[in-house]
């Protein structure tokens, strides 16, 4: 129990004194996971909408694959991204293994199916007649899709939160493709694991608390946006 208090004290100390290393790690976590989430939203919402609004052969298989992808283990993603990015791998010429960029790629791969899966469900939940109605009012197809996205925004914001939550808390891929390099690719989760293995439990607890606070504030902002306008 003492340890937890010590950790809280340490977290407070690190935050108040604006410890440069901890601040760097925190900002990097936010940047990496934020960018990965944005990429996953761009891909996930667009592709998810296309899947949801169109009927095509094998749709169920595609949707089931996307839904399975929602549980994609980060270590598996990490392993494959590592193999692809190795110097002697197919994308070795990019030279981006053990960089924050590699973490963004891996995390985007993890978050995309999550966002896509929830998008598909959200779009399919909208009444079918709504589409006809919007089109009947003279909207173009693009306008219709935009209207539907706005209509489903509660669920879509939930999708963004789920995607962000999935990657900010993820460790397996970050440590494999990022390498946990001090001052460069060390994020909150990988730093926590390292401090734990170093026996610095107070620092590890402090980092965990910072991670939780960060996740909370991001979700607070998203929830604020989500709840601002009550659905009609």
């Amino acid at each position, binding site marked *: 129990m003492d340890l937890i208090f010590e950790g809280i004290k340490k977290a407070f100390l690190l935050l108040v004194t604006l410890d440069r290393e901890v601040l760097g790690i925190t900002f990097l976590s936010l940047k990496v996971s934020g960018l990965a989430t944005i990429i996953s939203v761009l891909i996930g919402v667009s592709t998810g909408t296309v899947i949801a609004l169109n009927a095509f052969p094998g749709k169920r298989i595609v949707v089931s694959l996307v839904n399975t992808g929602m549980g994609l283990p980060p270590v598996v993603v990490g392993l494959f991204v590592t193999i692809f990015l190795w110097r002697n791998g197919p994308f070795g010429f990019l030279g981006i293994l053990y960089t924050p*960029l590699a973490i963004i790629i891996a995390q985007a791969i993890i978050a995309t199916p999550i966002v896509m899966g929830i998008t598909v469900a959200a779009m399919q939940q909208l009444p079918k007649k709504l589409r006809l109605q919007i089109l009947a009012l003279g909207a173009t197809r693009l306008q219709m899709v935009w209207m539907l996205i706005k209509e489903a925004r509660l669920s879509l914001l939930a999708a963004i939160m789920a995607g962000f939550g999935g990657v900010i808390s993820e460790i397996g891929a970050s440590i494999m493709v990022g390498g946990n390099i001090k001052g460069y690719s060390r994020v909150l989760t990988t730093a926590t694991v390292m401090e*734990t293995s170093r*026996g610095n439990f107070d620092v590890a607890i402090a980092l965990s608390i910072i991670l939780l606070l960060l996740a909370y504030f991001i979700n607070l902002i998203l929830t604020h946006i989500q709840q601002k306008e009550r659905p009609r």
Partner: protein
Amino acid sequence: MKKITHSFIAFIALVLASSVLFVPSVYAQQKNIILATTTSTQDSGLLDVLIPVFEKKTGYFVKTIAVGSGQAMAMGQKGEADVLLVHSPAAEIKFVADGYGINRRLIMHNDFVVVGPAADPAKIKGIKSAAEAFKKIAAEQGLFLSRGDNSGTHAKEKSIWKASGVKYEDEKWYQQTGLGMGQTLNVASEKRAYTLTDRGTYLALKKRLDLDILVEGDAILLNIYHVIEVNPAKFPKVNIPGGKAFADFMVSKETQGIIKTFGVDKFGSPLFFPDAGKKVEDLGK
């Protein structure tokens, strides 16, 4: 709704703009060195002291990947690292003989110790020979935790088991964590188990551990670190000058001096003994 969209776009733009900061790293490749090393050099904090000195001096950027010695050499074998700092001599000699590495140089040593709960259920405290102590642990079926990860420590542990001549694999009292040294020590402390550890990591974590040193000082327990440059003849993408610069830095007088005093202020005794230029046979004498 418009306001929300705007704030969203602003947020996205902000994050995208900040991502530009990542770009230079892609172009500055030749300035990067990938150092594959063991967890003990990172968990003890030694590299946190040495690497900034090296970077400041040479302008290189070191990407330290802390894994077990086995995995570090596997990275070297694929040309995915430029220089290795490892402690698994038998495997290292094979690594160099197979043409994957060049210029293997002695850096430092400390020693392994057998640690366990103070109660010492297998009564191994004070036994001089590590192999004898392992035999006793097996006979008494004391819980023993192995790294089980092909690290240098794991290799050393296997060689001690071999010397003891007892059967240990698949035994109930023998468990593998598959984790780094620091984490394995934490597990051993919780489970009141015996384990083999390098002294450096043990000393660094000691304050949190419920483990005592039970066996030490046996010649077989010597823990020797070498630096090896990955053979550029085999892998054209290896950063040859970078790897060499780091290896040269490790044997330099200044670095050896830092190693000599590292940990003294914190633990009262050094964690590693610098050995550059010495012969392996003379160590520990």
